[in-house]
């Protein structure tokens, strides 16, 4: 496969054969070598062959092999002759990250670290199996699918300001619950307000370094040592079922002949099936927003209980990592409405975009990039250049570098817990084996991922936070 260097940290696979456009990879030489070790680049080429693709098939610095589309893949399609693909969104629809800032300083919580984590562990269900805490009716679930985080706020979980500081205001308006199967609803009913397992986590952290004081100030990040909270989870079994259902429906409708990977199955965006998937996906997105809204509320409750107040616990932002959205972008000099697929990628809009809340419109959108378990996470700010470079997108995390199986052989959860404890980081989980699978050593270097993002201009560094207490589902 020909890979041409365009510039520092920018590489291209030229258009060839069935590719309708070139593929472009934003990566350091070292991260690119890792990506070459799996099917990432082949998958990026396959995406470049899909009907209606605009500009290029983009690959973010943290990319690794996915299903059909790579994880860390961004592709936008014409609304008229382009497609929408469940494989371009992923199984965990609106897997994403929410960040809260607080007025607490590291010193305020040092003595209460263990208690805070124990209480969070008690109040926020991991939700393995059906053990959620909310007993929902189907009617209420359908309301949540339409209203998203707004339903949670109406029901006492959080504030209107949280909604303003959530991508899409915490609700995709095109959502329609009628396309969801009985199974999707059944999986969704017991799991609302649960974290899930795998790479999902809840952390309280402290700000370790501020790179851009102006943007940091705008995001409510004032000082080194300031305590923050990060919640990483998605739409749980409901979203997984929506993806599964529509992959099957699209296969049955279109067949799979000619697809190099059945997970690339798709439907024309404007077709009845394409629209039904889009509206169902929006419903799953809303479920995930409501999920994170409820969890954030419980975390505030725990802080209030353990520390005596939820001082200044305002939401910084909530971003989607797996989503397809209709957005305006400039293609060939003209503004166009496109269906932008971000699979394991974060929207990274620069100043002035109407989608950004007024409080941030002057500086740009907060971009939240979680690191692997027990390591640093980053807050970046979206840029104008990103709109030209990647339809306003950047990385979403560290990206795995080692298989779960291998991690399980190499690491022990209890050992990781003890090592982190020596660094002053508390860790709790429902499973030590699960902790071993998520060992930081099994992930790419998140520092290098954000460095590439900053250097290329996909998203600029604002602050680095490090964990103090970690709950892994």
């Amino acid at each position, binding site marked *: 496969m020909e890979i041409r260097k365009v510039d520092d940290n920018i590489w291209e696979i030229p258009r060839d054969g069935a590719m309708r456009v070139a593929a472009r990879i934003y990566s350091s030489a070292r991260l690119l070598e890792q990506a070459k070790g799996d*099917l990432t680049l082949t998958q990026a080429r*396959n995406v470049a062959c899909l009907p209606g693709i605009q500009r290029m098939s983009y690959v973010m610095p943290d990319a690794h092999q996915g299903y059909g589309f790579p994880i860390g893949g961004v592709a936008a399609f014409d609304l008229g002759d382009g497609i929408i693909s469940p494989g371009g969104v992923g199984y965990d629809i609106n897997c994403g990250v929410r960040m809260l800032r607080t007025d607490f300083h590291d010193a305020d919580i040092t003595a209460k670290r263990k208690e805070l984590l124990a209480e969070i562990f008690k109040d926020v269900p991991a939700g393995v199996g059906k053990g959620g805490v909310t007993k929902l009716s189907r009617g209420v679930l359908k309301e949540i699918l339409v209203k998203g985080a707004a339903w949670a706020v109406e029901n006492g979980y959080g504030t209107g300001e949280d909604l303003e500081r959530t991508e899409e205001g915490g609700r995709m308006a095109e959502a329609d619950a009628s396309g969801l199967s009985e199974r999707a609803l059944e999986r969704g009913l017991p799991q609302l307000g649960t974290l899930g*397992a795998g790479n999902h986590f809840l952390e309280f952290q402290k700000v370790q370094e501020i790179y851009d004081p102006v943007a940091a100030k705008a995001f409510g990040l004032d000082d080194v040592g300031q305590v923050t909270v990060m919640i990483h989870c998605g739409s749980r079994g409901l979203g997984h079922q929506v993806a599964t259902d529509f992959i099957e429906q699209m*296969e049955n409708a279109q067949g799979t002949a000619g697809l*190099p990977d*059945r997970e690339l199955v798709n439907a024309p965006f404007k077709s009845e099936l394409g629209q039904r998937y889009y509206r169902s996906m929006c419903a799953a997105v809303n479920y995930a927003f409501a999920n994170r809204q409820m969890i954030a509320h419980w975390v505030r409750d725990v802080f209030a209980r353990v520390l005596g107040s939820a001082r200044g616990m305002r939401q910084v932002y909530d971003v989607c990592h797996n989503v397809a959205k209709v957005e305006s972008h400039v293609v060939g000099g003209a503004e166009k409405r496109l269906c932008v697929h971000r699979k394991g990628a974060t929207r990274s809009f620069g100043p002035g975009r109407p989608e950004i809340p007024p409080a941030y419109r002057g500086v740009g959108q907060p971009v939240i990039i979680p690191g692997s378990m027990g390591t640093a996470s980053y807050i970046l700010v979206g840029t104008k250049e990103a709109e030209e470079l990647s339809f306003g997108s950047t990385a979403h995390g560290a990206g795995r570098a080692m298989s*779960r*199986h291998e991690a399980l052989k190499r690491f022990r959860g209890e050992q990781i817990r003890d090592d982190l404890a020596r660094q002053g980081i508390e860790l709790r989980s429902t499973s030590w084996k699960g902790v071993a699978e998520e060992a930081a050593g099994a992930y790419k270097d998140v520092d290098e991922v954000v460095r590439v993002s900053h250097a290329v201009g996909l998203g600029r560094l604002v602050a680095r936070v490090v964990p103090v207490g970690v709950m892994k589902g």
Partner: protein
Amino acid sequence: MRWFGSPSGLARDGPPGRLGYNGAMPRYEILPHPADGKFRAYGPTLAEAFANAALATASLMWDWTTVQPRIAVSVRVSGQDREQLLVKFLNELVYLFETRDLVLAAAEDVRIATRDGAWTLEAVFRGDDLAAGYEVYGLVKAATYNEMEIAENGGFVLQVVVDM
């Protein structure tokens, strides 16, 4: 439309029978995968290979060898080809775990039939209630078609990647 590379990443022009079956094979093998769960399940018949694929999937979430087969649940799935049948069969396991807390110990009485191009499968899942105290160390979100291979060569080999 011409696509690039081998979609599965497996060398298609490798030695014949690379995915062949022999009686000495284990029920399944977990394979390296950068992010998710990948395995090959083996069986002298398609039905046995399917049953072993269910165990391989379960092994990514809990230790099925320790699970008491106290509960039996009948499952029935259909598909337009063997691949779809396999995805739906494995997703049944995920669905029953999430909605009924069924922790699988074995897939028994697997019967696979094909008629007029459509495939159906009937089986009995045996296992236990999660509340009995099993450690769940991973969650499979869904079975996928990524890198899926169904090879028939003196028996059956099923290669599957599940999203985790």
